[in-house]
């Protein structure tokens, strides 16, 4: 694609980021969830998975879904610097989405965690995978975190013993910023982060070109028509 000068000037310069090495986790039902990073071209598909939740008021799904949608669109259209998105898939269906970005070498900015399939603590696992990416693979020193959902946030705040850092401003605004430092990650990661690598070719195949969820427990009566 030919990029003209104007477009070039609107695109942020991208920092080379090591890709997230995919892994798989055996969930409580015995199902295997593949956790992998998406390529930019896959954003439109993920947007379709997220879209139905934009109208679900319960449990803050609407604001999280709407913001994830806009963040991923920003990533897709080259308007956000150094953003990434990880998805979880089970049997070839997208079950969760997490995203964030690198602010600089040292600091990561956690954006959102959106669980599509409920009941298996998928959100907790994807959040941990995100933290793993920033602190173990991108070799950053800390990740800044805020949340929309009070209960979910309190759980992370307590479980990871997040450091309160009200003086810094998180890009998502809202409540005071909390920080997961490398030290806190080292302390808690054994009990929070799991999964095996490498993912077999056969399993990985299921995760590529994943299907969108047919139904959403959050939206009673919803059924996807077409793709």
């Amino acid at each position, binding site marked *: 694609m030919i990029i003209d000068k104007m477009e070039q000037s609107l695109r942020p310069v991208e920092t080379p980021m090591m890709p997230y090495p995919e892994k798989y*986790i*055996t*969930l*409580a*039902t*015995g199902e295997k969830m593949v956790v992998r990073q998406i390529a930019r071209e896959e954003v439109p598909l993920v947007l379709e998975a997220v879209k139905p939740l934009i109208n679900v008021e319960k449990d803050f799904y609407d604001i999280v879904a709407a913001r994830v949608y806009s963040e991923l669109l920003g990533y897709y259209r080259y308007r956000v610097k150094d953003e990434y998105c990880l998805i979880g898939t089970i049997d070839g269906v997208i079950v969760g989405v997490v995203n964030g970005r690198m602010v600089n070498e040292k600091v990561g900015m956690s954006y959102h965690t959106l669980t599509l399939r409920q*009941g*298996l*603590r998928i959100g907790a*696992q994807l959040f941990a995978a995100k933290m793993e990416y920033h602190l173990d693979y991108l070799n950053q020193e800390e990740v800044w975190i805020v949340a929309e959902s*009070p*209960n979910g946030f*309190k759980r992370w705040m307590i479980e990871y013993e997040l450091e309160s850092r009200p003086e810094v401003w998180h890009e998502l605004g809202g409540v005071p910023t909390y920080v997961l430092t490398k030290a806190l990650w080292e302390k808690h990661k054994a*009990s*929070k*982060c*799991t*999964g*095996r690598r490498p993912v077999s070719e056969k399993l990985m195949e299921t995760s590529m070109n994943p299907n969108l969820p047919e139904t959403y427990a959050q939206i009673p009566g919803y059924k996807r028509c077409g793709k």
Partner: protein
Amino acid sequence: MRQVGIVGVGHTRFGKWSGGTFMDMLCAAAVEALDDAGVKLREGHGIDQVFVASMGSGMVNRQSGVASALVDSLNLRPAMAETIENGPASGASAVKLGYMAIASGLCDAVLVVGGEMMRVISGWEGTDFVATMLHTEGEYNYGLTLPAFAGMFTRLCMEKYGVTEKDLSIVSVKNHENAMHNPVAHIRLVPSLYAIAEDEDANVINPYVADPLRMYHVCPVSDGAAAVLLCAMDVKDRFLKKPVKIAGIGQATDTHAVAEREIPTDLLAVRVAAERAYKMAGVTAKDIDVAELHDAFQILEIVESEEVGFFPRGEGHLAARLGDTKIGGRIPINTSGGLKAKGHPLGATGVSQIVELVRQLRGEAEGRQVQGAKVGLAVNFGGFGNNVVATILTNQEED
């Protein structure tokens, strides 16, 4: 003394109640039971007394005098009404009081509804609310919780009898499998034994809640209501269905502070309550065909199955390993899914256990029916075992 039977049962889907208010939830279970019995909700309804079992209607839902309100909501005025609180054993206690009201001759027909709406508060507030049943100075003020005592109790059972974490998972999986055949169960998902007990990821996927108890060994937080209509056997023809008789009731209390229990691995109140119920019903453990045992923590199902006499002390987990407590096994336990998978709205649980036994004894437990079940036992565990109610039901006519 007059004989008492159950002629109607009702049960909401346990989980997150989104059908309206707390009162709506109680009404939903109540009308199902009344419809089941063929009672018309207008003048001449014949219901003399309503008991509502709920531990948190005041503390959590900020409503008192719930039974009085329910009578009006159901158009059952001027029936007598009381709200009964006995912690997680509120349900069975309310049924016991219903039994007493009829057996004494005071009433002919009594409606008992148990209900709890806990998912309106956060998990931490819920844990705190449940902990209020503990000894204030000696336990609650320390931040001790029911799971904490269950964890300590489990550790002792592991030490003394060799119960393993995998045994707890075996019981949990059995209960989840049973719940898949129970349309009112909260959790409709079966964990894989391998995934929660043995896989490399198991330690993170099934984390400790109060070690050695893990997440999949502990019941969920649920909203829900269940109802039964009791009647004197001598007026049973007023109602549609053949009654299931309440053959025996037993109850016992134990020390409040758990540290003061005589034998720390015993659930003495369970043993005494069951003995009293067996005596009243004129049966023994061998006569029980199906049981609902209070399994808020999976260790409790194992130990209760021993204390009520199904297995020798220290062998309940061995029986579970062999499949003796599955549907089709020697003594099916928690065919409903138990508190683990069916859910545990505190006040509703005792009534819910009895609803399941009635369905089993009527032959209405589709998909999870214990063939030819004649006698059922329910054990409803209050506090951390300091107040236990055991109820025995039978579908047999003669005593």
